[in-house]
C-alpha cells in the first residue's frame, strides 16, 4: 500500500485554503505584488530613466520580477512551512487529523503541494503583471518561453529546497522561533555573503547566479544552471522525504517509510554527485589553465616561426567546427628552426598535419609542435596544412586573467549574466582570436614575459561553410558562393581573425568610400523608428564622426569596411595588460551586445524622452525633430564607438562594462601597428596609451572629490617604493598596471615632445606609424628615427624611465587670472609660479578647459589647451597662458611626482580686465622659489606632526566586521562622502585643501562636539597673534538641507586671558585663510581645537596659522 492521491489532494486543498486565508501570507504577497508593480512602472514605462538592459532584453522583465519575488517567497515559505509542524501539545486539532488513516507520506506531501500551489499561484500573478508591462508598456518583444523558464528554474527549486529544509529543521529542532532564526540567518548569509562566492554554488535563491537569457543563444550556461538547480531540487526533495521518515506521527505504512528513506538517501547522493560535477567542472578549468600556463612557460621564450599567409577552410557542423588551415610560415628568427610552434584551442583535436617537405607533429594541450623533416633556414618559408575538428574549450581562454577576476560577477544592475568567450551552436557561432580557433604562431600567452605578445600580420583567407539560411561575418571582402558558403577575401594583412555566424540581416551604408555594415539578428531592429528623418544624412554624419575622431587621434582608419555585429549579451572579454583592445573590438569589426543592451547610448526611447524634457524646460535652443535625431545618432556614436574613453568607474545602472570596450581605437593602433622589443615589451602598450591620450577624458573635478586617491596617485605611491621595471615584473593588478603604463608612457613621450616641439614630434610619430602599417617594427627603429629626424637621443632617458625611482614634487602659487589687452583684442590670461622642490627633473602638463560641460554631450567638444612644462631639479618657473576662450578650469597634472592630489585643479569664477597687465604667454625661470609659509608665520597643517586628531573607537563593530570580511581595506585617503560622512576623522586629498606636496584635510560628520582636532604650536615670542583657519568650501551641486549646509565651526582657543570659543560661519567665509581673532599668547606651547559640533553636514579640519600682530 503506497501513497493515496486522494489523501494528498485533500490535505493539499485544505493547506492551500488556509494559507490563502492567512493574513501573513496575504499581506506579504500583496506587498510583494505592490512593490513589484511600483518597481515595474519606472522600468517598463516611460516614467523614469532606467538601464536599457531591463527592456533591451525582453527576458529581463520576467527575470527581474522572479528574482525579487523569489527572495520574498523564500522568506515567507520558512514561516509557512514551519507552522504545520508546530509541536504545541495543547493543540489537539492536529491529533484528530494525525489519527486518521493516511500515511505520513500522504500528509507531508499534501502539505508540500498545498504550499507549493499557493506560491505558484503567486508566481503566476506576478508573471502576469510582468507580462502586462512587457506587452503594453515596455515596447519590446514578448518572449513566452522566458516566462516558463524563470519560474521553473528559479522559483520551483528554491521553494522545494526551502520548504524541505524548513520541514526538516522543524522536525529536528522542534521549536518554531529557533527554527526561524536558524533559517533566516541561513537565508541572509546566502543572500549577502555566500551567494556571490564559490561560483554561486551556495546561492540557492539564484540571486547571484547568472540567469540572463539571451535572445540569440538562450541561457549562457544551461548545463551549469541545470546542475545548480538540480542540486537544490534534489536536496529539497530529500529533505521532504526525510521529513516523512522523521515526522512525529506513528507511521502507517512500512513501505512508505522505507521508500522515503531510500529516496532521501538517493536524492542526497544525487545532489552530491551534481555538486561534484559542478565543482569538478570549475576545478578542471583551473587545472587546465594552470597546465597550459606551465606548458607555455616551458615552450615559450625560444624563437619561432612567423605566419605570413593562411588559407582557412572552416566547416560549421552544428555544435562543432572542422578546420583546415593552409599556412605559410616564415623564419624571421635569424637561426635555423627545428620546430614550428602553434597554438590551437585544446578543445580542437588536430587530425592531420602536412608540410611541404614532410613533417611530424606533437600535440599537448593547446600547443601544436610541428617538426619538419629539415630545419627551416633563416628567411626560408614552408607550407603547413593543419586539419582539426572539435569545439572551443572556453576554460582555455584568457590564461593571463587571474582566477579571482574570472570568478567575479558580470552583471547589469542586479541581473547576472554568464561570462562566455565563444559560442558554437547549430544556429549561432562567435569566435574571436582569444579562443584560438585557428592555429596561430607561438604559445599564445607566455607567463615568463606576459607583455610580450607576438603579432603576425597575415594574408588571411577564410572559407566558411555553414547551414543554409545562416550568414557568416568575418574580416575581408565577403563573397557568398552559395547558400551557407562564404569566402572572406583579405584586403589588408590581418593580425587576427574573428568569425560570427547567425541569422544576421545586413544593412550597409557607404560613406567616403568606406563601407559600414550593421549585422543585426533578424527581428532586432528596435532603433530605425528613431531615425526616420535622417536616413539620407547618416552617411555624412558617420563621415563627420569619423573625421572628428581621426582628427583627435591624428591617425587614419586602415580598413575599407567597418562592421558592427550583434553578439549575445553573455559575450564577455577581459581587459589585457599589453593592450587596451578587448575581444569586443576586432579588426574592422565591433561586437556589440544584442540590441545594444549594456550600452548607455543605445536606449533611444529614453534619450528621446530626455531631449523632449530638456526642450520643455527650455534648456538649449529649440531643436527640430531632424536635429534631435541627429543628436541622438551622434550621441550613440560618441558614447560607444568613436568618443572619448572615460575612466569613470561610477556608472548609473550598475553595469560593469567599460565605456571603452567598444571604442574603435584599437583599429587605429593595436591591429595596425606593432612595436616589438625584447627587453621593453611594455613599449607597445606605452605608445598605444600615449596615442590614445587625446581621446581619454580627464577625471572631472567632482570625480576627484568623491573618489579618494585616483589610480594615478596610487601609481605614484607605488613608484615611490619600486621602479617601473620592478612593478612590471610583479604586475598583478590590471588596473594599476594600465595606469602605470599610461602614466609612464605619457611621461616619456611628453619629454621627447617637449624637447623637440610638439608638432615636430607628433608629425614624426605619425609618419613613422604611417609607413609601418601592418608591420612589426623594433623599438630600435623608432629610437633611431628620433635620433635621425628629431636629433633627440631617447636612450638615456629610457634607461632612467625604466629603472629610476626618484620623483619630482611641485609647489604651485600665485595663480592669477585676468583679462588682458593683447594688441586690440581682449584675451584671457592665467599666470602662476611653480617650483620643483625635489632633486630630480620632472615635467607637468597644464590643461585649460572651457566651461559648460553639461551640453557637451549634444554639441561636440569644447575648447581645450594643453601644454607641457619641464622643471629641472629645484627649479622654479613663472608660467603664463593667454587664451582666446575663458577657461573654466585649469588643471596641472604633476604626472610622476610626490604630489597629492597629483592633478591640481583651479576653478575660475571671474576674469576681470587688468589694463596694466602685460600679456605673458610662455615660461621663464625665476630665482625665488615658491614659498608657502612666510618666515614669521607658524602654519600647522593636518599633515604636520603638530596636528592631532582624536582617535575614535566608536566605529560600529558590525561595520568593521563587514569591511574586514569583504576585504575592504581602507586607504589612508578616502573620497569625500557627503552622503554618509565618516563618524571618525578621515583624511582626504583635494586640490583646494591646504598643504605643500600633499594637499589634504581631515573631515568627519558633524556631531555634538565629541570629536576634536588639535593644532599645536610653539610660540617663540610672547605677544598678540592673529589666528587663522584654512577654509575649503567644497561645493556640491544641487544639495540642500543639512547635508548641503556649510554651518558654523566651533573652535576652542587657549590664550593668556583664558579660553575663547569662537564660532566661524563657513557659509560666509571665503576660501583660504579666515581669521579666528587676535589673542595674546605667551612664549611656549599653544593650541587651537576644532570640534565636530556644527549645524552643518561635515567638518573639514585642514590648517591653522599664527601670525604675529603688528
Amino acid at each position: 500500500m503506497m501513497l493515496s492521491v486522494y489523501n494528498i489532494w485533500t490535505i493539499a486543498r485544505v493547506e492551500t485554503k488556509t494559507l490563502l486565508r492567512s493574513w501573513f501570507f496575504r499581506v506579504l504577497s500583496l506587498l510583494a505584488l505592490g512593490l513589484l508593480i511600483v518597481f515595474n512602472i519606472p522600468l517598463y514605462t516611460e516614467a523614469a530613466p532606467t538601464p536599457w538592459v531591463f527592456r533591451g532584453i525582453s527576458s529581463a522583465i520576467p527575470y527581474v520580477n522572479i528574482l525579487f519575488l523569489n527572495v520574498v517567497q523564500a522568506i515567507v515559505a520558512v514561516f509557512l512551512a514551519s507552522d504545520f509542524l508546530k509541536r504545541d501539545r495543547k493543540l489537539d486539532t492536529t491529533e484528530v487529523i494525525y489519527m486518521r488513516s493516511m500515511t505520513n507520506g500522504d500528509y507531508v506531501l499534501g502539505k508540500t503541494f498545498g504550499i507549493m500551489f499557493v506560491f505558484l499561484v503567486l508566481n503566476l500573478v506576478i508573471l502576469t503583471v510582468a507580462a502586462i508591462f512587457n506587452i503594453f508598456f515596455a515596447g519590446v518583444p514578448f518572449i513566452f518561453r522566458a516566462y516558463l523558464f524563470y519560474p521553473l528554474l528559479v522559483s520551483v527549486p528554491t521553494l522545494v529546497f526551502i520548504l524541505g529544509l524548513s520541514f526538516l529543521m522543524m522536525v529536528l529542532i522542534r521549536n518554531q522561533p529557533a527554527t526561524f532564526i536558524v533559517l533566516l540567518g541561513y537565508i541572509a548569509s546566502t543572500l549577502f555573503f555566500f551567494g556571490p562566492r564559490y561560483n554561486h554554488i551556495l546561492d540557492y535563491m539564484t540571486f547571484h547566479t547568472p540567469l540572463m537569457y539571451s535572445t540569440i543563444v538562450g541561457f549562457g550556461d544551461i548545463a551549469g544552471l541545470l546542475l545548480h538547480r538540480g542540486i537544490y531540487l534534489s536536496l529539497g526533495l530529500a529533505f521532504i522525504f526525510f521529513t516523512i521518515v522523521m515526522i512525529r506521527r506513528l507511521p502507517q505504512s512500512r513501505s512508505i517509510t522505507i521508500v522515503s528513506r531510500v529516496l532521501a538517501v538517493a536524492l542526497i547522493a544525487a545532489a552530491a554527485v551534481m555538486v561534484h560535477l559542478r565543482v569538478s567542472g570549475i576545478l578542471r578549468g583551473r587545472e587546465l589553465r594552470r597546465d597550459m600556463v606551465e606548458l607555455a612557460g616551458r615552450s615559450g621564450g625560444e624563437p619561432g616561426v612567423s605566419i605570413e599567409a593562411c588559407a582557412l577552410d572552416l566547416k560549421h557542423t552544428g555544435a562543432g567546427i572542422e578546420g583546415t588551415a593552409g599556412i605559410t610560415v616564415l623564419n624571421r628568427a635569424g637561426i635555423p628552426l627545428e620546430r614550428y610552434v602553434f597554438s590551437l584551442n585544446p578543445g580542437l583535436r588536430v587530425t592531420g598535419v602536412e608540410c611541404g617537405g614532410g613533417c611530424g607533429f606533437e600535440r599537448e594541450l593547446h600547443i601544436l609542435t610541428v617538426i619538419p623533416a629539415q630545419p627551416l633556414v633563416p628567411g626560408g618559408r614552408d607550407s603547413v596544412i593543419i586539419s582539426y575538428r572539435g569545439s572551443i574549450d572556453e576554460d582555455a581562454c584568457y590564461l593571463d586573467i587571474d582566477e579571482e577576476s574570472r570568478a567575479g560577477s558580470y552583471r547589469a544592475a542586479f541581473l547576472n549574466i554568464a561570462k562566455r568567450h565563444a559560442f558554437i551552436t547549430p544556429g549561432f557561432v562567435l569566435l574571436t582570436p582569444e579562443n584560438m580557433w585557428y592555429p596561430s604562431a607561438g604559445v599564445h600567452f607566455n607567463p615568463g614575459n606576459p607583455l610580450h605578445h607576438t603579432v603576425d600580420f597575415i594574408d588571411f583567407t577564410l572559407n566558411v561553410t555553414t547551414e543554409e539560411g545562416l550568414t557568416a561575418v568575418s574580416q575581408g571582402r565577403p563573397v557568398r558562393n552559395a547558400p551557407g558558403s562564404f569566402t572572406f577575401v583579405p584586403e589588408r594583412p590581418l593580425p587576427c581573425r574573428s568569425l560570427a555566424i547567425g541569422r544576421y540581416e545586413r544593412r550597409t551604408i557607404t560613406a567616403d568610400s568606406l563601407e559600414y555594415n550593421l549585422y543585426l539578428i533578424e527581428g532586432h531592429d528596435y532603433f530605425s523608428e528613431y531615425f526616420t528623418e535622417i536616413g539620407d544624412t547618416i552617411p555624412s554624419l558617420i563621415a563627420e564622426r569619423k573625421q572628428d575622431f581621426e582628427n583627435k587621434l591624428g591617425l587614419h582608419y586602415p580598413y575599407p569596411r567597418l562592421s558592427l555585429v550583434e553578439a549575445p549579451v553573455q559575450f564577455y572579454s577581459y581587459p589585457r595588460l599589453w593592450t587596451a583592445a578587448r575581444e569586443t573590438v576586432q579588426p574592422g569589426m565591433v561586437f556589440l551586445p544584442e540590441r545594444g543592451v549594456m550600452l548607455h547610448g543605445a536606449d533611444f526611447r529614453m534619450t528621446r524622452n530626455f531631449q523632449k524634457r530638456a526642450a520643455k524646460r527650455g534648456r538649449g535652443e529649440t531643436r527640430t525633430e531632424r536635429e534631435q535625431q541627429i543628436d541622438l545618432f551622434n550621441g550613440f556614436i560618441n558614447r560607444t564607438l568613436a568618443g572619448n574613453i572615460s575612466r569613470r568607474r561610477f556608472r548609473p545602472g550598475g553595469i560593469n562594462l567599460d565605456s571603452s570596450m567598444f571604442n574603435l581605437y584599437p583599429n587605429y593602433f593595436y591591429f595596425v601597428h606593432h612595436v616589438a622589443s625584447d627587453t621593453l615589451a611594455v613599449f607597445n602598450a606605452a605608445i598605444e596609451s600615449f596615442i590614445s591620450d587625446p581621446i581619454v577624458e580627464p577625471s572631472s573635478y567632482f570625480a576627484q572629490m568623491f573618489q579618494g586617491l585616483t589610480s594615478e596617485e596610487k601609481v605614484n605611491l607605488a613608484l615611490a617604493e619600486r621602479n617601473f621595471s620592478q612593478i612590471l615584473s610583479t604586475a598583478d593588478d590590471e588596473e594599476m598596471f594600465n595606469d602605470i603604463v599610461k602614466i609612464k608612457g605619457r611621461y616619456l613621450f611628453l619629454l621627447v615632445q617637449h624637447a623637440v616641439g610638439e608638432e615636430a614630434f607628433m608629425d614624426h610619430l605619425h609618419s613613422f606609424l604611417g609607413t609601418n602599417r601592418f608591420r612589426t617594427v623594433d623599438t630600435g627603429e623608432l629610437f633611431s628615427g628620433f635620433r635621425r629626424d628629431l636629433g633627440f637621443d631617447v636612450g638615456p632617458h629610457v634607461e632612467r624611465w625604466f629603472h629610476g625611482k626618484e620623483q619630482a614634487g611641485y609647489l604651485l602659487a600665485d595663480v592669477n587670472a585676468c583679462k588682458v589687452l593683447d594688441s586690440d583684442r581682449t584675451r584671457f590670461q592665467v599666470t602662476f609660479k611653480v617650483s620643483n622642490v625635489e632633486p630630480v627633473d620632472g615635467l607637468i602638463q597644464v590643461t585649460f578647459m572651457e566651461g559648460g560641460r553639461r551640453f557637451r554631450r549634444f554639441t561636440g567638444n569644447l575648447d581645450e589647451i594643453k601644454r607641457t612644462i619641464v622643471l629641472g631639479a629645484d627649479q622654479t618657473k613663472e608660467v603664463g597662458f593667454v587664451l582666446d576662450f575663458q577657461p573654466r578650469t585649469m588643471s596641472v597634472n604633476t604626472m610622476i611626482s610626490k604630489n597629492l592630489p597629483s592633478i591640481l585643479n583651479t576653478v575660475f569664477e571671474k576674469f576681470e580686465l587688468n589694463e596694466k597687465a602685460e600679456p605673458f604667454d610662455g615660461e621663464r625661470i625665476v630665482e625665488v622659489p615658491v614659498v608657502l609659509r612666510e618666515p614669521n608665520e607658524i602654519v600647522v597643517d593636518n599633515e604636520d606632526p603638530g596636528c592631532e586628531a582624536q582617535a575614535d573607537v566608536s566605529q560600529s563593530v558590525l561595520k568593521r566586521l563587514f569591511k574586514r570580511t569583504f576585504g575592504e581595506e581602507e586607504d589612508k585617503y578616502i573620497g569625500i562622502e557627503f552622503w554618509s560622512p565618516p563618524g571618525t576623522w578621515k583624511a582626504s586629498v583635494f586640490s583646494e585643501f591646504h598643504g605643500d606636496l600633499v594637499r589634504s584635510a581631515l573631515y568627519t560628520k558633524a556631531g555634538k562636539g565629541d570629536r576634536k582636532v588639535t593644532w599645536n604650536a610653539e610660540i617663540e615670542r610672547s605677544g598678540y597673534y592673529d589666528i587663522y583657519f584654512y577654509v575649503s568650501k567644497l561645493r556640491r551641486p544641487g544639495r540642500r538641507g543639512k547635508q548641503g549646509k556649510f554651518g558654523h565651526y566651533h573652535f576652542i582657543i587657549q590664550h593668556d586671558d583664558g579660553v575663547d570659543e569662537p564660532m566661524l560661519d563657513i557659509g560666509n567665509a571665503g576660501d583660504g585663510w579666515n581669521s579666528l581673532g587676535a589673542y595674546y599668547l605667551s612664549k611656549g606651547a599653544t593650541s587651537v581645537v576644532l570640534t565636530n559640533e556644527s549645524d552643518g553636514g561635515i567638518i573639514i579640519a585642514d590648517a591653522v596659522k599664527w601670525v604675529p600682530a603688528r
Partner: protein
Amino acid sequence: MRIAINDLSKVYRNGNRALQDINIQMGNGIFGLLGPNGAGKTTLMRILVTLLKPTSGSVTVNELDLRKHRREIRAMMGYLPQDFRMFAKLRTWEFLDYVASLSGLRNARERTRAVDGMLEQVGLFDVRDRPAKKLSGGMKRRLGIAQALIGDPKIVVVDEPTTGLDPGERIRFRNLLSEMSRKEIIIVLSTHIVGDISSTCNDMALVHEGRVVYNGPPGRLIDKVRGHAWAIDAVDGELEAVRERFPVISSIPSGGGWEVQVVADRIDPYPGRPLEPNLEHAYVYFMEYGLNGS
C-alpha cells in the same frame, strides 16, 4: 467489534510510568473509563487511537494488531481529544468536510450529505458557514463530537466529552451516544464525571495510578459497595469531624444539622443509616479504600 488490551504498559521517556499491565476486553456498546485526573486514561486513549506507541503489551482490534495494522484500524476510528480547539482558518462545514474526506468518504455527494446530516445532528447546521474558531465553547465541543462521529466509525474514542457542556447539551450528547451504541460499534468514553458512565455504559473500567482497579459492568461495581454507603445525621459541630474521618460524597443541611453521605465500612460513633449505593459511592469508595476494602 472487539478490542482486546493485553498487558499494556506505557513508560514515558522521562521515566513516568503512565500505564501498567492493563488488561481490558471491550465489546460493542459504550465502554466507560473512569478515574481521577492523571490516572492514565488519556494515555490509554491515545494509544488506542494510534497517536502513541505502547511500551509493551498489545492491543488488537478484531484480531488486528494495533501496531501492524494502523491503516485499517485508523480507518475505523473516530477520536475526540480532551482539549479540542479548531483549525484557525476553516469554516465549520469545511473542517468537518476535511475530516470526512480523511475518514474515507470519498464520494463528494455522499460526503456532503453526511456532513450536513452530522451538522444537523449536533445542532450546528445553522452556523455551518461560520469560521470554526468563532464558534462558542459548546459549539466547538459539538463540532468536536461531530468530527469524531463522521464517516461511520466502528470505534469512537471520546476523552472527557462533556466538560464544558451545559446540562441540556450533556443530556443530548448522552442520548446521541446511546443511540449510536445500538449499532455494531464500540464507544470508549473516558470521564471523571460518574454520571456520564452510570447513565450510558454497560461496561467500564476504573483506572487508578496507571492500573485498572476494576473492570466490569457498573452494576457489579455498585454491588461491591453495598453496605458501605451511609447517611450520617450530624449536628452542626460534628460536620468537620465527619469530613475528616470519612470520604464525603455530599452534605445536605437538614433541620438544624446535616445529612452527610459517606462511604465507609463502619460509621460509629455517629448516628446514621445505610444507603442504596450508586456509582458515585462506588467510585469514591474504591478511590479511597481500594478494591479490597479498608
